[in-house]
């Protein structure tokens, strides 16, 4: 389990380093995800053996409570209550409508093209 965690950290570390070194406009962890994915792809393996068990366990633990990890950042909204309430109407309408349209447009486009192919 510790080896799996070390592997994940290493991917993130490499990702952060690559981003900084090549000035990529991406967060390090996203590049780290790509690296880990690439590693799994090269390693190969099908079905149950596809992902090493400890790695699967660590990943399921982390992703099973992904919401928890956003909580500290979400509490940060408290610092901007005054700005947010000053523009409350504008922000509420914009964010609700824009998020709804984005969800619908993405899912409908996806569905339209899977049905055709």
């Amino acid at each position: 389990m510790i080896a799996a965690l070390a592997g994940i950290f290493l991917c993130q570390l490499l990702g952060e380093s690559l981003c900084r070194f090549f000035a990529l406009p991406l967060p390090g962890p996203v590049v780290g995800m790509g690296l880990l994915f690439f590693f799994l792809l090269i390693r190969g393996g099908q079905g149950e053996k596809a992902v090493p068990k400890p790695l699967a366990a660590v990943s399921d633990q982390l992703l099973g409570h992904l919401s928890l990890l956003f909580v500290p950042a979400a509490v940060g909204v408290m610092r901007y209550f005054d700005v947010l309430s000053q523009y409350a109407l504008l922000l509420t309408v914009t964010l609700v409508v824009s998020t709804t349209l984005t969800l619908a447009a993405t899912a409908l486009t996806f569905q339209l093209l899977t049905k055709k192919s």
Partner: protein
Amino acid sequence: MIDNLLAHEADLWVYLASSPLLWLTLTLIAYVLADRISIAANRHPAVNLVAIAAALIIVALKLTGASYETYFAGAQFIHFLLGPATVALAIPLYRHWAQVRACALPILASLAVGALVAIFSAALLARLMGGDNLLIASLAPKSVTSPIAMSLSEHMGGAPFLTTCLVIITGVLGALILTPLMRLLRIRDSAAIGMAAGVASHGIGTARAFHVDSVAGAFGGIGMGLNGAFTSVILPLLRPLLGL
């Protein structure tokens, strides 16, 4: 005697407030409570884990008069795990790789449509409602993961920290709206639902997509990662069109 006791109490508070333990414990308890409420509500989409846990913590901070900086100094250890969790998204992606590869066209097309709708709808609505350039630049990258959104906001003349808030609110809204909207549109394909969640509302939407099923979670990770890359390339190019 009482003075002595009060002094002790003050000492204890100073110690607790400065150690990460109190804030980590508070975060975990708030999350467990929110999770219980969510389970009791049968994982109803209106009962959002992030929003409830954060609200409970904000109330606790207001009651004790502790600042966000004090809180975050402790809670940063949980925040830190966001990086490794993002890396771990490679595992569901790999597990569902065959399905992902077969959907290359729908993935890329829905990414482009979704990312453009996210940017233009936010900028246009804010403009129509009388928002200034600072507000519009802060809103435009709201659908992408916060490190990317912050640097884009800064580049476009927005306020990066306001953008972080807007990104989080967008994430929570996406998680709230996701399943009812998909039911309304009669979309049952987990891949389409996950992709929408990731493109429109980054990691918080993806967390919600994992509650739908693991396919939706995998596509949420793809949508989030690709939209981060796509928006960071096109948003600066769209700047003149947005009037910024």
